[in-house]
């Protein structure tokens, strides 16, 4: 008898202590990529507004979240997926991993259908937008002063040699918001201009962080001067008194951050309550909090916004984001980015460093009145090689599906891109060094 009592006690302890009970009434398990400041605030407010309900948070990068939901299809261990990346929701929806849910009409009132031409909610009702996000550039003012750097305005500005080694971003394969930024650039400039822009910009990067949160953190600490971030990182850092600024470039997109219920959620009632809470006036107002700094979808609330807060319903961003396109080539873009940029970053940096050195040498030679046409030709070739477009847009669309579905094919492609990138950046380095030699008259 005593042993059994012990076992019961132990079992009770195992479930009640930190974990909370599993599929009991009064609970909702939320898988989110959002920073702690955001989900902690919502957890407290949700539990206050819904007495007897508790919210359990699973914090993962968006991409790891997708992996988790996919691997647990049919027996999910979370109820709600809550993240910025709209294409992640499209991906989940198209793979039949989300539950349809339409919030009550009184909650939907006051939320426009579209922001900057982009639908706020999934037309088929599989997920809803609760906040709007744009993508842009944040910088540390102390850092810029110290290094005498000009303030950037547009993505192209970041290609200037002065910024070499001062920029930081995350990787699209690990961060959903970074993937949205990359897609925004690819869609805004077009594939053929977008890739060279990204590759060259990465050549100027000092580092690529593992999670998107690492970017604002590094900029705030002054480790790097300029970060490529989703707007609320910039806005919340400004609000908490850090010496930073933020700007939306012309080529940006306004895209809703979303919430969706996972198919077969163990706590459907809790999941619905959570979604409703996010859309309620109380839930929406929390977004203005300085530690959160996100843009609500409830348009009427902007009258109460803090000073200097952007209103997305008055902005006209340059890019109309195509979430289906983005979702269709998600694996392709992230894997390719990893192989030609993230993991080849050292070679890419070296190539651009050499190109900048060669440019200075050519400039010097021109000042001295020497003939620089040979050096310039080499330099042009070097730059072209260090602005690699790994595959054409047509090929990309052709192979995107197989890359997504077939791991063996994907692995083969990954190795192919890696080799391509090594070769291209190696050649760029060589050409740039040659150009410098020619310019210096050997």
């Amino acid at each position, binding site marked *: 008898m005593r042993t059994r009592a012990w076992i019961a006690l132990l079992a009770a302890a195992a479930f009640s*202590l930190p974990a909370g009970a599993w599929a009991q009434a009064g609970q909702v398990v939320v898988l989110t990529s959002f920073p702690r400041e955001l989900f902690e605030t919502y957890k407290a407010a949700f539990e206050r507004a819904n007495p007897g309900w508790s919210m359990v*948070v699973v914090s993962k990068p968006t991409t790891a979240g997708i*992996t988790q939901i996919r691997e647990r299809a049919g027996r999910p261990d979370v109820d709600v997926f809550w993240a910025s990346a709209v294409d992640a929701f499209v991906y989940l929806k198209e793979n039949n991993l989300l539950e349809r849910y339409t919030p009550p009409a009184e909650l939907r009132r006051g939320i426009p259908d579209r922001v900057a031409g982009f639908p706020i909610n999934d037309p088929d009702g599989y997920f809803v937008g609760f906040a709007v996000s744009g993508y842009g550039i944040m910088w540390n003012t102390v850092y810029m002063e110290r290094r005498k750097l000009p303030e950037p305005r547009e993505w192209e500005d970041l290609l200037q040699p002065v910024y070499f080694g001062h920029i930081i971003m995350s990787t699209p394969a690990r961060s959903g918001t970074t993937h949205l930024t990359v897609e925004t650039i690819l869609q805004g400039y077009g594939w053929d201009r977008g890739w060279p822009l990204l590759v060259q910009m990465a050549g100027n990067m000092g580092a690529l962080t*593992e*999670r998107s949160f690492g970017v604002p*953190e590094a900029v705030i600490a002054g480790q790097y001067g300029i970060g490529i971030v989703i707007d609320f990182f910039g806005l919340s850092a400004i609000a908490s*008194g850090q010496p930073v600024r933020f700007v939306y470039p012309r080529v940006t997109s306004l895209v809703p951050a979303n919430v969706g219920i996972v198919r077969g959620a163990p706590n459907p009632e809790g999941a619905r309550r959570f979604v409703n809470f996010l859309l309620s006036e109380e839930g929406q107002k929390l977004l203005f909090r300085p530690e959160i700094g996100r843009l609500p979808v409830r348009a009427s609330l902007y009258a109460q916004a803090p000073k200097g807060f952007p209103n997305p319903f008055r902005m006209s961003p340059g890019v109309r984001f195509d979430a289906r396109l983005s979702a269709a080539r998600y694996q392709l873009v992230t894997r390719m980015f990893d192989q030609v940029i993230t993991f080849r970053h050292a070679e890419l940096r070296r190539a651009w460093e050499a190109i900048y050195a060669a440019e200075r040498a050519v400039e010097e030679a021109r000042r001295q009145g020497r003939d620089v046409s040979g050096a310039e030709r080499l330099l042009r070739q070097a730059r072209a090689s260090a602005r690699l477009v790994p595959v054409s847009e047509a090929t990309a669309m052709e192979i995107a599906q197989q890359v997504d579905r077939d791991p063996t094919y994907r692995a083969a492609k990954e*190795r192919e891109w890696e080799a391509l990138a090594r070769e291209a950046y190696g050649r760029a380095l060589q050409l740039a060094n040659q150009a410098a030699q020619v310019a210096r008259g050997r």
Partner: protein
Amino acid sequence: MDPQAAAVSPRPAVAGRLRWRYEPGHLVLYAGLLAVVGVLVVLPIVSVLRGALVDASGFTLAHVARFFYTPLYLESLRNSLYAGLGATALASLLALPPAFLLGRYQFRGQALLVTWLTVPLVIPPFVGAIGLNQTLGRAGVLTLFLEDRLGVQFVAAEGLRGVILAHALHYFPFVLLTVANALANLDPSLEEAAKVAGARGLRLLWRVTLPLVAPAYAAGAILVFVRATDDLGTPLILNVKNMLGPQAYFRITTIAREDPDGYAIAIVMLALALAAVLAATRLGQRREVATLQTGGRAPGQPLRGWGPWLLLAFSALVGFLGLLPHLGVVVLSVSRVWSLTYLPTGYTLDHYQEILFRAPQFVVNTLLYSATAAVVAVAVAVGIAYLQHRGRVPAPGLLDFAATAPIAVPGVVMGIGFLRVFDRWTLPWVGVPLTALWLVFPMLYVARRLPYAVRAASAAMAQVHPTLEEAAAVCGARRWRSFRRVVLPLVLGGAVAAGVLVFVTAAVEFSATVLLISRIEQSPLSYGIYLYAQSPRGRGAAAALGTVAVVLVAAGTYLANRVGGRRSALAW
């Protein structure tokens, strides 16, 4: 180091007569322990091996071969080896001069210097990396100082260099203690003989002294190498991606749990660690032969001439460097705004309020998991040690071997194994995989830290002479009673020390924890640090949690030393 601990006690005399008869009670205990160790240690390792070597068509070497065809993985392997060798070299450079000073000379304040130089051991490398970022990183105090005053732009704690620095600064005391100990215990007659034969100065050092301490040094150095090679937390904090640990972690968490490449990387890490630990064991055996001839200790010399003073100055510099991570973390934990200035421009206690009151679960969970792990690990270890020394069971060494195996298993590999095994173990009455429950963390920590506990318990058990139990038996005590009243009280000190060590090392475990974490409510301190380290509003709260970790480890190490004597500090 402790001759008594190393002495192996003879088997009970009665065993001679009853050699082929097994004791039923022992057999039950044996089976139970075998099951525990089998599930916690053997299954996860086997599962990783299966993941890498078996696919739908049976045994295959294709995945492992792919590792060696993929330049990215080869580069990661190179970087990992480079980090390991670099950390070993730097740790040696920092450790050897002070070791020579402490092993050879006697001066006032020696104990203080030893304590000061061992302080770096209390800061886990991935926490240290956060502190280094603030002192030697891109925006670090010393980096800025160098640039402003000397016009030198040099970032010491960045990328692979940062990984090397973090490990070297954490582990150099380990090398220092082993070498200083070996030097102090060196048989003076050997050096005297060399002097008589005409060897002096550097020649004496090179030809006689160094070869004698080399085995001790190598054993310490190999540990530094292994830890730096297969680490995950430090590279992640420092944004280093092309190393084995991070690559395996990315494959498993973002691509797929069943991604064969992840297992191939894991198996390479396993092979590396295994090779290094085997090398260390062999060298350790050689060392015992060398020190068995000890005829006495040479008296420490006084500090005379400029040589020892130079060593002292260098040791002070090393002590200063060793404190940089701590300083960075502690100051960061009370800073509000610290951006490109020598010191923060705003201070706050808010981060402590955050981790102690608003989100106390990190600290609470850590205490719960580590304490559970410590109790279980010690209980299992005492059982194993008892069977090893007294057990009348078939192959008592098997248990000991299996329980010590995790010492050669990198945390990432153990984490992957746990994920693969226990995700499929669904608890019948709730239908929840074991990986979703907090119990999986204590289980993991038991598996990873069992070797320490078994070593300590075995050493304690070896000191209990069987005649004591025989005496108890003569007085009429049954086996269980004599175990409880005689053996247990005698091994208790060692067991408690072992438990404390399991506790502190479990409290700062990161590599495997990060793979198994699913919900924030369950996460321990180490994952909390990682989470806060990426907070968009700065790393203050991470530093506050890091400070708590440092305090926990320091208090634990002190306690273990008090209870278990100096040996336990070296078990770290």
